[in-house]
Every structure is written in C-alpha cells, then in structure tokens.
C-alpha cells in the first residue's frame, strides 16, 4: 500500500519540475538556436580587431554627423548607430 507522504512528495517533485522546466527553456532557449559553429578562431579575430574597428567606426560616425550638420545646419541628430 502506498503511503500518503510518498504521494505528497512525488506530487511536490512533479510540481517543482513542471514550474522549473519553462524557466529553464526560457533561459536556455537562446543558446539552443546557435546551431552553427562560430569557431573560436573567428571569435578571437573579432576580439582582436574589435578595438580598432570600433574606434574607426566611431570616428566615421562622428565625422558623418559633423559633415551632416555642416551641410544641413537646421537638422539635428545623425546615424542611429553612432
């Protein structure tokens, strides 16, 4: 005969798993989509170039904003990504 505390414990565990599963799915789902291998060598190169490319891009955007303002002094703002 099954004892009532065993049933209660099993139900509690099932409830816990039922609540935890969607939370895990929510947090792990992003990684589940990364189906291609980015390659560590490719990541490494991106980190290596990051400083230079970031700086060049920032200067480029800044320059574009300045020239934009000079061309159209009345207009504010610039590139959304700047």
């Amino acid at each position, binding site marked *: 005969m099954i004892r009532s505390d065993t049933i209660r414990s099993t139900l509690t565990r099932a409830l816990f798993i039922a609540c935890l599963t969607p939370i895990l799915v929510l947090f792990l*789902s992003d990684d589940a989509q990364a189906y291609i291998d980015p390659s560590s060598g490719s990541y490494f190169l991106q980190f290596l170039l990051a400083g230079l490319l970031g700086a060049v891009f920032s200067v480029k955007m800044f320059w574009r904003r300045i020239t934009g303002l000079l061309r159209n002094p009345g207009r504010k703002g610039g590139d959304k990504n700047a």
Partner: protein
Amino acid sequence: MPDDDANGLFGSFRDPSGFVFKNGGQVYRQINKCYRNNYDFFIKSGLYERLVKDGLMVTHEKAVISPPDPAAAYAIIRPEQVPFISFPYEWCFGQLKDAASLTLNIQKIALEYGMTLKDANAFNIQFIGCRPVLIDTLSFERYRPGRPWIAYRQFCQHFLAPLALMAKVDVRLGWLMENYIDGIPLDLTAALLPKRTRLSFPLLANIHLHARSLKKATEREPDIKNRKMSKAALLGLIDNLESAISKLKWEPAHSLWSDYYDENNYSKFSFDNKLAIVEKFLKEARPANVWDLGSNTGIFARLASNAGIPTVTFDQDYSAVETSYRKARHDGEKNFLPLVMELLNPSGGTGWENRERKSFVERGPADTVLALALIHHLAIRNNLPLEKIAEFFNKICNKLIIEFVPKEDSRVKKMLACREDIFGNYNFDGFCRAFGKYFDMKGSVTIDKSSRSIHLMKRRP
C-alpha cells in the same frame, strides 16, 4: 527517389528552430517551440515589418494546417512563394554581390531592433525576379551585448571569399561554391588570392588574418573567455565587411557570347523574323513558366518575361549573364532571373546524400523551354547524339520551342571546318526522328532568308 517533401524538404534540417515542408504544392515552414521567444520578439519588435517594408525579406502569413512534427511545433507559416530556387554557384558576380550587401544590410537593421543574424548562409538568399530577398524567417536571435557576430566566419566563406576570388583571380571560381556547401574555406581562398590583396585592409583582416586565426585555433584553443565586443566594434566589423564587398568589382568582358547577336549570321531582317516566330509560338504555348537554355543576354527570353511569364535563363558565359542581370536590375524586371549554367554539366544534387540542394533537372520540369541556336553546339561541338538531346528535353519540359540549325548554316560549317564530319544523322530527318519519340510537332516555321527553322513541340503524355 523517395519524396520526403511532406515531412520536411531535405535541405532544411540543420537548424533545430524549424524546417520547411511542402503541402499541396505550397511551401510552408514549421517554427519549433525552441524558437518561440526569438520568433515572437522578431515580430513584436517590428523587425519583420521593417524588413518586409524595405523589400529585404519574404512576407509570410500564419497557416492553419496540421504540422508535420506536432510535438515540436509552435506555429506554421506560409512564406511568399519563390518561383525558382537558385543556388549561389549559379549566380553571376553581381547577383552574389547584391546578396552579400543584402545580408549585411539586414544585419545592421537587426541590430537596431535588438536582434542579430545567427547565420549568414548564401543559400538563405533567393531571387524573386531580379530582386534578392532573405527567405529564412528563423535566421534571427536576440542580440546579447558583448557577444561577437556568430555568423562572421560563415559570411566570409559564403560571400566575401567567392567574391574576392571572382574579382581578383577568375570569375569562374564562383563555381567552387558547388563543391563547398558551407562556403569556400578561407585558407584555400587566402592561398588562391594574389599576394597584393594583403595590401587591402578589409581583405587582409577578413580573409588572410581570418584564415590564419582559424588555423591557429585548431592548433591551440585561444583564450576568449571573459572577452566582450562592444556594439560599436560589431558595427565597425559590419562596416568593414561592407567596405570589402563594395570595393570588389568585376566588369563583363565582350566575350564571344555576349557579342553573339552582333556577330551571328542573321541579317537584321532574319533576326526580327526570328523574334516574331518565337513570340507567336510563345502565345500558342501559353506557358506557366519558361526556361531559356543557352539564353545569352536573354533577348528572346524577355519576350516571355515581359508578357508576365516567370522566366529563368541559363547560360555558361558569366559576361552574358552579368549583362543580362544588370539590365534586369536597371529595368526592375519582376519575372526575369538569369543564371549561370554549363548545360553539358548542369548543377548536380549537392550536400548530404547529394540531396541537400537539388540538381538542375530535379528543379524541373519547366512548362516551356526555349532552345534557340543551341542544338548545333550540343550535337556538333560536343558530340551529343540527337537521341540523347531529345531524351534530356523530355525530362525537363512539357513544351519546347527549339531552333534547328542545319549543316548548310555558316556557323555549323565553321564548326566542321577543322574536324571530320562524323555526324551522319545530323539532319532535319534525324532531328524529327529523335524528337518525335517524345514530342508532337505543333508548328514549324523557317526563318526568312535563313536555312534555320523553329519548331513548337508538345511532350506526349
């Protein structure tokens, strides 16, 4: 070959986010539960609407049909149907370059909306008419600050490497994409490119240093833990790739084929008469779609596409296809898709089990095929018996508009000038016998002031 299209098209199995399948002749996409958050964000963030509004991506609608894999399914969508699926190794330089620019543009827009491309696969781009569009609704994921671009290597292999090789070495190297389904390896690209390409920073960084970095990583795993990449740096990388792509240029030469119409043996009168005959036969055939084989720059194919018939042209000559594509882009042609294809060795089934990407023949049959000024090249120049040629056309079309070029024609005379005439069966009777095995002749007209004739045939049921 078993048809598994109902359970998922064979080329759609790598990404667990979902897959494409066919139902009632229509293409659908199942979105799996594991992709739910990303898909919902893609829609709610406004990214989908923006990409569709800008004409960069196919539209889709929710479909109410039973999913092939109900346990995994979150939703079924019906994307805008692509008239003809083409592959990057069938594109001319301009097509691949436009597809590359489209991918980078989409990545920039995605970042504005807090998402990023999780793949940069050239096979995800298709042409509707001459307009490139992204067809994979599942290519996006939430952007996580600090993370580099996961699809960077893939972009370089699928787009930058073939474009650099086509521009800097030989345009025919675009065909390497058929051998390398995940793009041309960067070490091979670096080895084939001239040394002077190291003087260009975008090519130095994204090809040469990238190839070296990938090689080093196989010898010793680099330390990339706790490293972050700012969004400005990520945008800088995209900007740098854009610069690399935009600087790669290739101009079509005046090849034998791109000048063919100027140098052929028709008079202006005969040429106009040929146009009128083809137009008449097209009206009689009333095609649902047209393939033009050996299309050159597509003058005759445009008789069909300008009448609103979806038309795909195939030619082996990159210059002819490039010229044709540029005209189509300039004129905004909606029913015209020019592709590079060597008819004697057309695209085969590639990838896993030779079934991931369908062969040329498997993507048919076309309703109507145009084969103008082609048969003598196949039969005389390339020793293909007329019976084999007829058998091939029987596989790829329901109706055929074909030009017969007899031995009296000056082009055939030129072909036979330096070789022995071993083509005893190559005459009009032999032509009728070979094609009569599969087709019923519906009309025949001789081109005025020419020995050539054009025939409309219908395949027997």
